[in-house]
Every structure is written in C-alpha cells, then in structure tokens.
C-alpha cells in the first residue's frame, strides 16, 4: 500500500507554517502548547473567515499550504481526522443554550460545530465535488483518515488525496481535561518534558495536512509504506507481536529501521510502554521524540508524520528530535499510543 507524500502543510506550536522545519525551536512554559498561527488574510477569503473558529482556520490554512506545495488545485479526495472536532463552536453554542435557557440562539456556532466542517470548508473553497470523509475516533482519528486515503489510492478511485489531522485545545476542554489529571501540575518548559519523570503530560494541538499520491514525482518528501493500528493490547507482549508482524508484513525487521519516533509524552505511566520496548524489541534502535514540541493530543501522529517526512527529505535529524546521531535515515518507524488504548504504527521511507 505504498503511497507518496508529495506535500505537507502544518500549523503547530512550533514555527511549522511556511515549511520551516524546527530551525528555531519554540519553548512554551505551562501545561499547554498553543499553535503559532499565521495571518490568515491572503490565505482564506475574508467572507468565509468571519464565521471560522480557530480550528477551522488552522485546518483550512494548513490544507491550503499543502495543496499549494503539491501543485494540485483540486484533490481527488479529502479525508480528515479529529477526535474532538470543533470544540470552540461546540462550547459557544452549549454555553448560550444553557445561559439563555434554549432561547435566542443563533445558527453559526451550531453549523460550524459539525465534525466534518473543516473538510467541507476546504471542498467549498476549492469547489471540490469529490469524496469527502471525516473520522472522529479518538486516538485513531488521523490514522483512520490516512487509511481511507491510502485505500482510495489503491482502489484507483483517486490519484491524490488530501489527508489531515486536526485538534484544538479550548479553555473549556483544557479545564475539563486538567480535572481528569492528564496534565503536569508543576509549571515546566516543554523542552524539559522528558526529564521531570512525573505524572502528567502537556496539552497540545495542531493541524497537519498531507497530499498523498499513488505515483512518484521528482519532489516527494518520502513514501508512506504502511499503516497499522491496534486497539487495547492485552499485554506488552501483544504490542511487541503487533509491531514485529507489522514490520514482517513489509518484509523487514527492526534492524532495518534507522530511527524510531515514539509518542513519549512525559507521563511516567504512559512512557513505561516505550521504556519496555526500548529494553526489548527496540533495544538496538535509535529513538526520537516529538510530543515535547506539539504536546499530547489524539491526532498528534499527524505531527509525527510531518517530522518523519521532513527528516527524510532534509536528511537531517534535528537534535531536538533525537540526540542519537544517525544521519540520513532511510527508514523511519513512528510508533505512538494514545492512553495505551489506541496504538499506531506508520512506516516512512526515503523515495
């Protein structure tokens, strides 16, 4: 199911928009990493922008940057993944509904709160009548959108697919998730995330889009060779088996992997899974991390994929990703789990 990643567009808590790749790492302090947003004027029509909440603007702008780089004006399909959807609009409508006791409500926030709004707005802007789907399955949201896109290419239903992973933090969601004890209680720098060895992680968000194509071009970032997800493994043994059989289905083994990008998020319990694997099947591999740059959120694998394809394209592993020096990686494995429920594996190779 090999596909080519022709272009990317990414709005994240790092300076990623405008195709910068971690040349100027941004430090955040606190328990929340907020996206660095571009000026949307010039990217999105002002008539549309006035109704868009932050996540919609981020999603649409990242998609536009991706399309622009790809040279594709209207993609053959659009698939998006978002675990939480348009939380700000949801919060606005819910708040008014409660405060005004179901009276004097206006439609805009309700309309925009729909989970497929970002994919729909992109279609509307491009006048794209093609396939359009939206996945909303927690830590599998982006992976589902990616799989759908890859299948469309195999089916020859599409020659190229625009795939995105988008999630936002709002004040409301942050205060609720904080009460669920997901985040660190002490104020730390995101760059110290892996040294504290305490409970909790940092809240993150982002909007990353990719143009997948079924044929190579001269300027692809990398190939996405395979994708696999597994749900609630019963033991670390099962996780190991899933990883080994994923690789063997690609006729390779862990020794063929030049860099493993893991989803470490700084929470000692969460990271125990990676610790165990780095003592067992990943023992001889160079490993890297990404969540100190974007924070933890259900579609963060999209940020990881952006990191992986940029490493392959630039042939440089930024020190902030991994200090284990192995320049010019040819094969990168992304292994992420979200709350030890949703596990995903993505294999990325040089073209």
């Amino acid at each position, binding site marked *: 199911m090999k596909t080519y990643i022709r272009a990317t567009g990414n709005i994240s808590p790092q300076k990623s928009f405008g195709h910068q790749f971690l040349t100027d790492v941004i430090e955040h302090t606190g328990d929340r990493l907020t996206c660095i947003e571009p000026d949307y004027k010039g990217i999105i029509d002002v008539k549309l922008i006035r109704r868009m909440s932050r996540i919609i603007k981020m999603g649409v702008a990242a998609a536009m940057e991706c399309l622009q780089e790809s040279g594709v004006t209207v993609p053959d399909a659009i698939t998006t993944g978002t675990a939480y959807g348009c939380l700000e609009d949801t919060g606005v409508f*819910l708040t008014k509904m409660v405060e005004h006791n179901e009276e004097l*409500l206006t439609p805009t926030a*309700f309309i925009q709160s729909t989970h497929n709004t970002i994919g729909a707005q992109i279609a509307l802007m491009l006048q794209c009548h093609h396939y359009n789907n939206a996945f909303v399955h927690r830590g*599998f949201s982006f992976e589902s959108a990616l799989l759908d896109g890859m299948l469309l290419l195999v089916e020859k239903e599409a020659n190229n697919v625009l795939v995105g992973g988008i999630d936002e933090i709002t004040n409301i969601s942050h205060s*609720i998730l904080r009460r669920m004890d997901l985040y660190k209680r002490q104020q730390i720098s995101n760059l110290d995330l892996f040294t504290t060895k305490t409970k909790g992680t940092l809240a993150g968000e982002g909007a990353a889009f990719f143009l997948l194509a079924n044929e190579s071009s001269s300027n692809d970032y990398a190939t996405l060779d395979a994708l696999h997800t597994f749900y609630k493994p019963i033991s670390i043994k099962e996780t190991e088996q899933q990883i080994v059989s994923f690789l063997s289905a690609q006729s390779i083994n862990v020794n063929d992997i030049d860099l493993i990008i893991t989803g470490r998020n700084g929470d000692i319990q969460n990271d125990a899974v990676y610790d165990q694997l780095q003592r067992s099947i990943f023992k001889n591999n160079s490993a890297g991390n990404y969540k100190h740059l974007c924070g933890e959120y259900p579609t963060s694998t999209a940020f990881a994929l952006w990191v992986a394809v940029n490493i392959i394209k630039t042939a440089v592993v930024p020190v902030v990703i991994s200090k284990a020096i192995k320049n010019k990686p040819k094969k990168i494995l992304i292994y992420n789990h979200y709350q030890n429920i949703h596990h995903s594996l993505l294999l990325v190779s040089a073209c």
Partner: protein
Amino acid sequence: MSSPVFVVGLGAISAIGNNVAECLTALETEAAGIGEIKNLQTVHRGKLPVAEVKLTNEQLATRSGLPATISRTALLSMLAAKEALDDAAIKDLSSLRTGFISANSVGGMDKSEDFFAEFLVDNTKGKLRNVVNHECGAVTELVADKLGIKNYITTISTACSSSANAIFLAARLIKHNMLDVVVAGGTDALTKFTLNGFNTLMILDQQFCKPFDENRKGLNLGEGAGYVVLVSEKVMASLKKEAYCTLSGYANANDAYHQTASSPDGTGSFLAMTGALEKSGLKPSDIDYINLHGTGTQNNDIAEGTAIKRLFTDRYPKMSSTKSFTGHTLGACGGLEAVFSALAIKHGIIYPNLRLETPMTDLPFVPERKFLQNIPVKNVMSNSFGFGGNCSSLIFSKI
C-alpha cells in the same frame, strides 16, 4: 476487489420500534413514531414534535446490559448492533477479523449537556463521568468493548450521511481483505444541542413532517440506531443462512455549494447516485426503489428531487422517505434506512411516504403513498445527504 459483500444481519431501534420486527410492523401498518417530547428535558416540549425511542435510559440499560448513566447514544447503539450481530448468527466470530464501524453526530452530548449546566456555574463542578464519553469515538468504544470487537474500530461523523459512509467504508475494508466481518451503521440520541441547533436553522416543522409535499415545512428530529452486518464471500459460504442482499454500489460526493444548504440542482446528490450506479454496474432503470433522504425541508426535497429527475429522466422507480415514520435520526439515518432497504428486498415490499397530500409541482414523479407488497424488488438505492455538502448513496441488490 470486485468480490461481493453480503448483508447477513440487521439491527434497528427507532421511534417506530425497539427492534427490526417492530419497525417492520410499524412500516406495514403505517404507524409513524412522531409525537410530543417525553424523554428529553427541554423548553421545546409540547411545541416541537420529535420521533423519540419509546424507552427510558433505564429501560435501554436493562435491555443492553450497559449502565443507565452512560450516553443514550451508546445505549441505542448497543441494542441495534447486538441485534444485528445476533441476527447474523456467525459462529466462531472470535476466529474472524471483525470490525465495528459506527457513526454518530454528537457523541455523548446528551450527558455533556448535563455536565455543562453545572460546569458553567463553577468550572470545578459537574460530574466528570458525564463528559468522559463526550467524544464521538467514545460512544463507539463503549459498544465495541461490550460486543467484544477489537480488530478494527472507527467512527465517522459527516452529519446526516455519517452512517451511510460507515457502511460504505466497511464494505471497502472487506473487499481489501482487511476484515472478514463488519458491524456497520450509526446511532444518535436526541439532544438539546441538536434540537436547538436545527431550531436556529428554522427548518423544524411544528407539525408532523411532510417529505416531498409541496407544502412541506421542515423536518422532525428523531433518534435511533441502525446497523448491518457485512461479510466477505468466504464467510458467507460458511454461514447456514441466506443473506438479505449484497451491498453492490456506493459513492460519496460533495455538493460544495453551502455549509448547510443543498445546491438547487442537487449536484452532490446527483454525483453520489451516479457514482453508486457506476460502482454497481447498474443502469438507472435497474433501480426498483429509492429510500429517499427526504427530510421534509424545502431545500433538501427539491434538490434531491431535481437530481432524481435528471438521473432517471422518464422511468422513475418507486420511492419514499421513511423519515415520515422515524423522523430524521441524523447520524443513524443511513444505518436505519440500510436496514429498511435490505428488508424491502427480502420481503418484496415498498414503504409509504406518509402525509403526502400535494405532490411537488416541480417534480414529474410522486413518491408511494401506500404500503405495497408482493413487488419484485431487486435493487434499492438509499440516499443520505448531510451538512457540509456530504452526499452518499448506497445500492443494495438481491442475490
């Protein structure tokens, strides 16, 4: 890739019945499920009619084996998904690669609303257990875990076409030989969020909805869940029962016209129907029945009707909107209507489009007004169109 995908199990719960048999009886006896709001706590009670499932959360919990404190959306989903799986009667399910692909529009919103009322007063208040399943995917997982399905689980949310898209993806995963069996469809419970949301759009009929009537005033919201069990040819061969039908065609297209409204000529609907026909290798004249999206809004029915007029030119299949019975169940409607489509093929029946008095003057056809039986129904098209221009058509075919 061209191997057929079989429909071998059906499960449904809606305002017209708590299982498939009850829904079928209501369709035969022309008994709509729309009425005054009874379960939902809202200021619109007594003003806006809705199509509620006639069981309380406690009753749903008892029947489903899930706790009454979780989202009604999950409770409805569990009952219908379980019924579908039981109906399929697949032995040794654990030896097969099984998936659960479910759709919904607002996840555990019914519980989030309760939480929010307290949270807004003081953000340290509100029971966290009421928001822990807010996400659409959480609802799917509650049911998947209870059913014991874990090979592949995902959730789709494209507003009112959600569950058609879930069924569509399920068939593709089987064709790609990634899964053997998939329970696919969708669920949605009535919530204040959606009721008020649609109310702001001024597209709710204050009387019972009249889809495809010249004087239609809007839709009635409903709730429910509908699932089909799809299996591969190999699994089909091992079953001792007959399949209801195959899923022979499917397509999704985008209207790309407006965030909520359909284009006047129904571009997206036309493309979805055309694409599904192409996939199935059928001609428009092969379609015996269309289960219309037919919400009863001015906009949907003229857009859908215009697209049908353009595609079928002069030989119109029988058609009806079963939303005149169930109300518009949003994320569940594609699943429920897939169940009704499969039953139409199996029993050779056509459902009536209730309360149709004055046919639309701009359309050259009139949906069926009476329940028909002993009709040869070989191919059924089921339409589902949602916000964001998301249009899907499925085609079910007799074996």
